[in-house]
């Protein structure tokens, strides 16, 4: 039995569920317990669990990350939230020099159950200090797990699994996904923390997408589907460890692969995927793997340039056309997503 909920409510449900079953779970961070509750993703937590398990902190990202480590080592299961991933940069020393290597460096004597939720933004002139994604950074460091739930199902199930995991897990959530509606099972169910998933089946070309780019890729698939080109969209789901099995299967079938990453291209996760697919599907690829992502600049504020900075369905469609040598589709009637017209429909 399934039901439809939003990504936001899935996050709330995941955390509420875990906080109920395990009193060692707590949620903290800057503005976590104010009336806005991080875009309402912490709705009801303060009321139900009180200020010891849901609290605001000083503006001290670095110290408060170390704080989480200490709490985790002593048996608690902290969830630390950053309203923008850009602020997590201030916490990199703790994440990378301390947390990632803590278990290993102690010869396995400690475990670090620690969830970091970091939100990535876009649009309305957030500009260059509020638009980074950085999943490739954390994924580059052994000892950190990195996930990017896209569907409400994964927002629910992967967040639950992350909280239960005995290792540090960084979950990167795209703000535009919060209103997305999707089916989840009647009872809250965990989802595996790794393993890609086909979210739109097709035979002609494969797109591996991260986070919001799945929405863009699905729209591209729908547009092209109308002219008989079937596009398989694979949601990466996890960035580290990244399990490419499903993707490889898809590319072996289609012979074409595009990586649409919600990030810069150079030295990003897209490079990892392209390198792996080029390696594993060597000889079966009909064309080189193409990579799409942010323009190689900081994100500009003004809308026309901001739009040009991001990659979307249009660029995906054009890339597919050029790879499959198709004539350009007439896109004049299409309505693509934007800051004002976010995705809200069923996932």
């Amino acid at each position, binding site marked *: 039995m399934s039901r439809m909920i939003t990504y936001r409510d899935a996050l709330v449900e995941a955390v509420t569920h875990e906080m109920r079953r395990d009193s060692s779970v707590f949620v903290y961070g*800057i*503005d976590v317990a*104010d*009336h*806005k509750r991080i875009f309402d993703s912490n709705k009801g937590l303060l009321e139900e669990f009180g200020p010891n398990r849901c609290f*605001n*902190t*000083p*503006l*001290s*990202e*670095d*110290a408060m990350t170390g704080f989480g480590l200490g709490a985790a080592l002593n048996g608690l299961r902290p969830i630390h939230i950053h309203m923008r991933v*850009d*602020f997590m940069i*201030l916490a990199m020393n703790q994440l990378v020099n301390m947390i990632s290597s803590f278990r290993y460096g102690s010869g396995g004597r400690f475990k670090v159950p620690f969830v970091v939720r970091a939100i990535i933004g876009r649009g*309305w*002139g*957030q*500009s*260059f*200090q*509020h638009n980074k994604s950085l999943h490739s950074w954390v994924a580059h460091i052994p000892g950190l797990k990195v996930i990017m739930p896209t569907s409400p199902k994964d927002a629910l199930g992967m967040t639950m699994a992350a909280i239960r995991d005995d290792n540090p897990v960084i979950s990167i959530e795209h703000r535009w996904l919060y209103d997305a509606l999707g089916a989840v099972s009647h009872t809250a169910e965990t989802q595996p923390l790794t393993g890609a998933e086909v979210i739109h089946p097709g035979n002609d070309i494969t797109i591996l997408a991260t986070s919001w780019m799945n929405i863009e890729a699905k729209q591209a698939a729908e547009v092209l589907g109308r002219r008989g080109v079937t596009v398989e969209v694979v949601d990466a789901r996890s960035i580290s460890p990244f399990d490419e099995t499903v993707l490889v299967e898809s590319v072996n079938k289609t012979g074409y692969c595009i990586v649409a990453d919600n990030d810069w291209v150079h030295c990003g996760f897209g490079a990892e995927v392209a390198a792996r697919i080029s390696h594993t599907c060597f000889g079966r690829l009909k064309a080189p793997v193409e990579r799409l992502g942010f*323009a*190689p*600049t*900081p994100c*500009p*504020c*003004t*809308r*026309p*340039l901001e739009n*040009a*900075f991001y990659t979307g369905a249009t660029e995906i469609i054009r890339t597919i056309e050029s790879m499959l040598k198709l004539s350009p589709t007439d896109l004049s009637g299409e309505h693509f997503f934007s*800051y004002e017209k976010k995705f809200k429909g069923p996932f």
Partner: protein
Amino acid sequence: MKEKEIQLGLYRKVYLTRRAEDLIRAHYLEDGMKTPMHMSTGGEAISSGICEALQAEDQVLGTYRSHALYLSRTGESDLFFAEMYGKATGMAKGKGGSMHLTAADEGLICTSAIVASNIPVALGAAFANKMAGKESVVAVFFGDGAIDEGVFWESLNAACLMGLRVLFVCEDNGYAVHIPAHKRHGYQSITTIVSGFECDVWQSDSTDAWQIYLLAQQARAAAIQNNRPGFLHLKYYRYLEHVGVFEDFKAGYRSRTEFEPWLERDPVKIQRENLLRWLTEEAVLLLEKQIDQQIETSLQRAMEAPFADHSELLMDLYA
């Protein structure tokens, strides 16, 4: 400078700021300004008082809440509104938006949307000025939230150690977003603590731009004479929501009652009264009209200006 001119300068600044933000508020919902707005309204005494005391060779840095700082420092509004509208005629061709204002020629180095990140930049700027033998100060503005961040303490320590002429201007509105200071600070008084560092400490909760000016003038002179930083702890009240153009007393984290005594001593009102000791009501009205016209014109120009060409996306990355 004669007091009259200073009072006039101060009123220009507070009035320009207040009215420019009123204009933003009037037009924001039209969605032409696609950039998050962190309003200065209520804090005009601080930026005007300090900018009035600063000299041309001095420099300033601010936060994402720097409309007042920009307008007080430059007095201009064409580039300002154009940047709000993301137009090619903005000071950053629209690439920066409301949180990233610069005015290289007027010594506004930058405003930054990462809390406290502007603070250490002031040190290097002051160091360069020191090496160049300049007799100038660098004033860096930040909120009471910024003092939670480690880099504030690192910067304070280093500036004191190196004897840099930095004015640390803490604009304390008692909140970081919605969290009051006492829920973020493990101490009673920041000025007591900072007094332990080798710098001069100043404080005020005045909303009278003239008082802030006097204080800032002293602080600037002390920094230059003592070859060391000054820390200015200045209280004010943020009238509007953290980000956005509306009041937010209904949100519940603070009350209108808290606001009222501050509104009583509104900085624009006070400075108008100050000025009326030197100018007639008619003269003040005329000045106000000039400023109103200036910003209306700027707004109009900004609305009509073109966006930067798409080729701009890839420009300005490297020198």
